[in-house]
């Protein structure tokens, strides 16, 4: 058996070839070779179930779990650098002082169940791009920048342009997501995170993440990101704009939440209609704002 190559054992998914990458460059080489036929296996918490249902049928899996070089957290001035292989559970305790670490911890507790958090990865979640994934919403809220590597080099993609539609990102088939860079929130930023799911640990029907400043009782730098409502995570720019300079009151929050509910392009599924999603946006956005200001 060639090193790094594993004879496919019998298993529930449709047959596939498996490569265990020993370095980022080796992973990138595999992706360059197989392109669309390949899928990257990180934590596997979404990919493997999809393969077991035979909904996902990649011909080749490139396993990047051995890549310790992608398992890091670095603070680089005002930027938090997160290696793609950092597991969700890492964020349950704040990884950085201040609101950014607090917000990540708030969101982390909503990611699946503990076994999922132990295995699943930050980068895997972004690359999978489930519209109801917490990290996608956080990345959008914080205007994260996402770095890729490929045989032809690499590039940086802003979160706003990264998430395209359900399970679809700006990543090219030969690109590997290697790092997310989160510009840290100012120390006096207040944050809130609210979500509603059918059961504990389920993907949220809707979630709202907010960040705002209100040093003098007036709102500044308001940000609102929403998940689970559309085919991708969304910002609510009109609602953010409406909050700007407003006194932080129940009324102004209510008004902003109303704007958010109306401005988003909501999608329904078997767990709730588009109208219901809008109702959730209205409630959760207001609650997240209240949570932020109360903290």
């Amino acid at each position, binding site marked *: 058996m060639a090193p790094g190559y594993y004879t496919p054992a*019998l*298993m*529930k998914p*449709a*047959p596939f070839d498996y490569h265990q990458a020993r370095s980022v460059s080796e992973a990138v080489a595999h992706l360059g070779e197989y392109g669309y036929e390949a899928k990257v296996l990180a934590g596997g918490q979404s990919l493997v*179930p999809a393969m077991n*249902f*035979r909904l996902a049928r990649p011909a080749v899996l490139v396993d990047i779990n051995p890549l310790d070089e992608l398992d890091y957290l670095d603070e680089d001035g005002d930027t938090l650098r997160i290696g793609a292989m950092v597991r969700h559970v890492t964020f349950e305790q704040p990884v950085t002082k201040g609101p950014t670490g607090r917000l990540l911890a708030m969101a982390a507790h909503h990611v699946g169940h503990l076994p999922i958090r132990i295995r699943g990865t930050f980068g895997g979640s972004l690359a999978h791009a489930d519209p109801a994934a917490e990290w996608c919403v956080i990345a959008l809220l914080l205007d994260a920048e996402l770095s890729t590597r490929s045989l032809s080099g690499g590039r940086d993609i802003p979160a706003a342009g990264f998430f395209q539609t359900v399970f679809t990102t700006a990543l090219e088939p030969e690109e590997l997501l290697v790092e997310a860079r989160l510009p840290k929130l100012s120390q006096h930023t207040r944050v809130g995170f609210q979500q*509603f799911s*059918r*059961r*504990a*640990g*389920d*993907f949220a*029907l809707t979630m709202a993440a907010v960040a705002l400043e209100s040093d003098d009782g007036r709102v500044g730098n308001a940000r609102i990101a929403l998940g689970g409502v559309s085919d991708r995570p969304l910002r609510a720019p009109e609602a953010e704009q409406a909050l700007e300079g407003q006194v932080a009151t129940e009324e102004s929050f209510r008004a902003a939440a109303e704007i958010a509910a109306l401005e988003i392009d909501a999608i329904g599924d*078997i*767990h*709730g*209609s588009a*109208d*219901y999603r809008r*109702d*959730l946006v*209205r*409630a*959760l956005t207001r609650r997240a704002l209240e949570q932020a200001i109360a903290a």
Partner: protein
Amino acid sequence: MIPWIGQPLPRFEDPPLLTGEGRFVADLTGDASFLRFVRSPVAHGRIVSIEAHEGITAFTGADLREVRPIRPLLHRPDFHPIEQPVLASGKVRFVGEAVAVVVAGTPEEAEDAAEQVFVDIEPEDRVISAPDALRPGAPAVHDHLEGNVVVDARFETERVDEVFAGAAAVVEFDLRSRRQNALPLEARGSVASYDPRSGRTTLTASVQSPHVVRTVLADLLGMPESDLRVVVPDVGGAFGQKFCLAPEDVVTAWVARRLRTTVSWVEDRRENLMSSFHSRDHHYRVRGAFDADARLLAVDADLLCNIGAYSCYPVTCGVEPLMALAEFPGPYDFGAYRVRSRGVTTNTCPMAPYRGVSRPVITLAMERLMDLAAVRFGIEPAEIRRRNLVSEFPYTSATGLVYDEGSYVESLDRAVEVIGLEDFRERQLSARSEGRYLGVGFSVFSERTGYGTSAFAARSMDVTPGYETVDLAMDPSGNVEARLGASPHGQGLETTLAQLIGDELGVAPARVRIVHGDTDRTPYGWGTFASRSLVIAGGAARLASGRLAAKLAGIAAAELEAAPEDIVIRAGRATVAGTDAGIEVAELARLAYHSSHRLAAGMDPGLTATATYDPDGTFSNACHAAMVEVDPETGGVRVDRFVVVEDAGRLINPMIVDGQLHGGVTQGIAGALYEEIRYDEEGNILTTSLMDFLPPTLAEVPTFEVHHLETISEATITGAKGLGEGGTIGAPAAVINAVADALRPFGVEITEMPATPSRLRRLVSESERIPA
């Protein structure tokens, strides 16, 4: 611990299960080849061709032509039989119906091979919901069956219209219960092994009634029953889904015989959600007439049950509509009753009984009726129930069912006391002023259990279940073996029957081995379903032990030179009452086999006894009370507290009773708030994973508070009543009533379960649009 009856003895079943020593079908495949079923992706259509890729071993309906179709029967004029081929032949009638089967060396290869079978189906118009199936011109699911109605039963007492015309108040509402899957942790499966030496085939299967499965297999395959053995190993939950015949089990047995080998079928979760039995897809229209004192005078109900594409064997698809018709009145005393109950076939997965069968829905209907009337009359829900509950026994219901002694009012009063209703109403009011919505809901119900042949015969079933037999033997060492036709699979019967037998024979339960789940080792019986086994198999065990005890007493009397009626058997010893003279039971056992020359003239050697018990049935009863908080902005419901006041007669093992209630109530909460099988308009099933079909987890259910009343009736010889289904029957109504109570300020009417967040939110938002 004497008597053993009433002791919370730890279950004998648990140590192996908890230490990984349990053996389920998938543990017993040995060197079997594996089957994988190729299933229809089309809801309704004509099969044009089925072609397997070269080198794949596949069988289709054409290969199984010799196998008779499943044809469950009721002998009544309002029932129209429909047939199901074990593999679709000619037509497919639901998405997920098995159209072919492949054989391969491993389950994984079989799954790969199944993808290499190409099925060409010409789609036809399909019909998915019961109301649609009734519309004129609706597609016929079965060609010969006009209007898609399989059973159309009516019942009417005298004076119904007259009573409605004279009523002080008429309460009228629609109710819909969405489709569920019983969701056993272990899905279905079997191993079939052909033995060329004996010519026999052994089916090791995860089922609830091994003898019935053997009979129907022999019937369908056209072979002597003696050439078949059915074995049931550990079963990881069944809840009714494994009571009715799985067509796949027939195919598995057929392939084993055809290939003269061992083959196995182990269903995966997606198949289970798509193709195993569903339940409780009902539409009701209910009217109730009340007098000025809020006394219920009459009920008029139109009940529609979607039975799916085929009828289930042996109980038939009449099981839901006919139970709903007969048991709809529940615990309430009223005389005038009119009902029409229909079972309608559609292009969806077939129905089978699921824990509680129709009763979770009919209980919800009666309990909504009570709550709606209470609001109309401006009285407490508890008060209107008190005025209407049955309180004198025996009570004969409008449909002629006879209720033995129960504690309907007492269970309600106890529940009211336990939850502190008055305090709750105060808390509810003050919470409302803070924008929080709390609610309490009650559910009082009767649970018909332990019913034998007479009850099933009243349904005119072609296959009429009912009795149970126990073969009992004490071996020369004084240990006891009881062989049952019942087939426990989680109910703890190995423990409770040992307690019953132990008391009767004066031996410790640990010395009583219960043998079940093997047609070669057990007397013919009907298996375990319908909250019957402790009552019926327990009654048979009691009778058989009584006979065996009489023989022991006879032997002891001869040895001790006393009269048999003076012998007392207790704690392993037979003594002459009022004296110290005695002899060990074990010594008597040895004597019965090894010194039979000392037995009285005419007495046979050995210690065996057989008894059959076949009671008419007994009604247990309970009151459930749920306390919830509803978030009107999200529609989310949290169940804060759940109280059960249960009366199941004499408790043989209270711990097992509590366990039954915990599991049952959880499944009831599942039905009330979470679980729902969904189809799209094309008949594609949308809920084929546990991300979409949502059983509640520990995080979604509260700690249960169980209280017991023990009303002993003459209806059973042990004093025990069944309660296996009660948790599931009562909980939905308690939860839905609590949600309705919480949302009362919004003036909304809950007409559907599960009451999902999106449905509740829609109700609230619609009410918000109407200016108060």
